[in-house]
Structures are given as C-alpha cells and as structure tokens.
C-alpha cells in the first residue's frame, strides 16, 4: 500500500525532475531504463531461484556445487548480478532453519528472487530478525521446534543468501518443473517451509 495521493504526486514529480536532469546530462537513457523496469517486472522473479532449488533436490552433484559455491553455479546459469557480489546458498535440514535479512537496507538476491517483498524492507523485520528470529518466524506462521537451530544470515552489498528449503514429503514422483512450482519466494528467504501443495 502506498502513501496518500498528494505524497505520491510529490514523489512522482521529484522522480521525473531528477530523471530529466540526468537524461539531459547524458547519464541515463530513458529507453534503457524502460528495459531495466521491463526486465525486473517480467523476466526476473522467484521462478529463477525455484529452478535452482528444485534441481538441487533431484541432482546431488548440483546440490553439492550449489552449497560449495553458489555464485559459480549462478554464473554458469548466466544469471546476472553476481559479477561483484557473492552468493551463498544455505540448506534447511530437519535440525537447522535458515533465515535471511538485510539489517542495513534491503540487500537481496534480486536476479534469483525478483524484487524484495515489502515485509523484507520493513524496519521491524530488519531489526528483529537478528535479535528474535524465532518470534519473527512465529508471527509469520512458522512455529519451529525448540530443537531446531535458527541461523540468521545478514546480507550485505558484498554477499547475498539463498535458502534451499527442504523438499516437501510426498513429492518423489514429481518432475523438476513440478517441484519448482512448489518453491515459494518466501521459502527461499526462510520465512516459510514448504508443503507438497505449495501453500501452507
């Protein structure tokens, strides 16, 4: 949900003024800006990360490589955004649950998951995920057993994280594509776990 209308009109005006100054000075090109927006709205999204996760469930060698050097795998797969930024994949297990946050701002593996959801940019989430991850997860509807260790990963400009959720039970007969369809964006941030029907 956005602010009230007058504030939006002001942001809109400020943005257009800034863009026209930058365009006039040859620092941005409106056509390539449109392409950037188009790309982020239609091409990149959680389906990219979901493909990696699903493949890691069916291909043990791929999984090993992903956990050892996710950035190398992402670059092999021709994913953008990892020239100067590292990527680390962390796997959930019955005894470990991983959760990703960016306490500084909103660093996020955009080319794998699309743009970050609003709650990821929430000051409350950014502050509390590190201090009190169990309760944050509980508020998200995920009540972990006390025996499960919660590991919180704080993203930076230098390193981004991808959570490999556990493969849901009862999915042995599914194809990679069918499995990928089960993998949600939030499960790859660690905000939820997966069930076979994809929703909790």
């Amino acid at each position: 949900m956005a602010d009230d209308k007058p504030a939006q009109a002001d942001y809109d005006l400020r943005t257009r003024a800034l863009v026209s100054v930058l365009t006039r000075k040859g620092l941005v090109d409106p056509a390539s800006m449109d392409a950037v927006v188009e790309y982020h709205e239609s091409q990149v999204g959680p389906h990219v990360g979901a493909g990696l996760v699903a493949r890691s469930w069916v291909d043990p060698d791929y999984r090993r490589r992903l956990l050892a050097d996710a950035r190398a795998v992402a670059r092999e797969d021709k994913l953008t955004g990892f020239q100067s930024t590292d990527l680390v994949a962390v796997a959930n297990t019955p005894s470990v649950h991983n959760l990703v946050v960016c306490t500084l701002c909103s660093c996020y593996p955009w080319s794998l998951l699309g743009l970050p959801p609003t709650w990821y940019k929430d000051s409350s989430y950014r502050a509390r995920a590190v201090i009190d991850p169990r309760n944050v997860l509980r508020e998200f509807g995920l009540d972990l057993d006390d025996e499960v260790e919660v590991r919180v990963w704080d993203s930076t400009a230098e390193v981004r994280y991808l959570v490999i959720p556990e493969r849901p039970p009862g999915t042995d007969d599914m194809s990679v594509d069918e499995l990928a369809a089960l993998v949600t964006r939030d499960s790859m941030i660690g905000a939820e776990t997966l069930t076979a029907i994809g929703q909790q």
Partner: protein
Amino acid sequence: MGDPDTLAQLSLLSRDEADQTFAEPWQAQAFAVVVEFIESGRLTQEEWSQRLSAELKAAEGRGEYDTGERYYAHWLAALERLAVDRDITAWNELAAEREETRMNDHHRRNEQLKSP
C-alpha cells in the same frame, strides 16, 4: 539496531501483501536509475547500500519506523542526495526542474480540457 522498547511497540509482522513489483510508476523509475548507474560503473553496490542504509537510519532516527511501504521514498531521497553530492546536479536545479515539470503538466491538463 533500535531499542527493544520501541521495537516492541511495532505491530506484529505479516507476510501478507499484494504480489506486485512496483506500487507506483515513479518507484520503477527511481529503481531503474540506480540499476543504470551500477551497470554503467558510475556507482558501486557498496556505495549504494551505504547511502540507502544512511537514509533509512536517518528516517528511523526521526522516529519514522516504516513497514516497508515508504521504502522507495527513502530510495529516491538517497538518489537525489547522491546526484547532488557528486555535483551531477544541485538542489536548486532539481527544484527548478520540478517547477518546470509541474507547469508543463498544468499546461497539458488545460490543453486537454480545452479540446472537445
């Protein structure tokens, strides 16, 4: 990060939200400028992360805890400040450009009202 009392007053977190990329067109534009800057090597991820983080911290310092909805407003503010700090533009140039854009919008609206 923030003192626990203030944090405790924040509402419970919810993952519910409409699954849209940008809520308003200006957010997409402001986003695209930063991507262009980074891809053309004018700006590093590190510098942008620091600038955005400083903007968010300043807002929180003013007591403006936000639920992520004003995120692109901070993004835009950080971008304007970057352009001014780098001497790409100046605050008065931006203000003049806004005024001109506003006048153009006004003019266009009047023209549209006049046409049948």
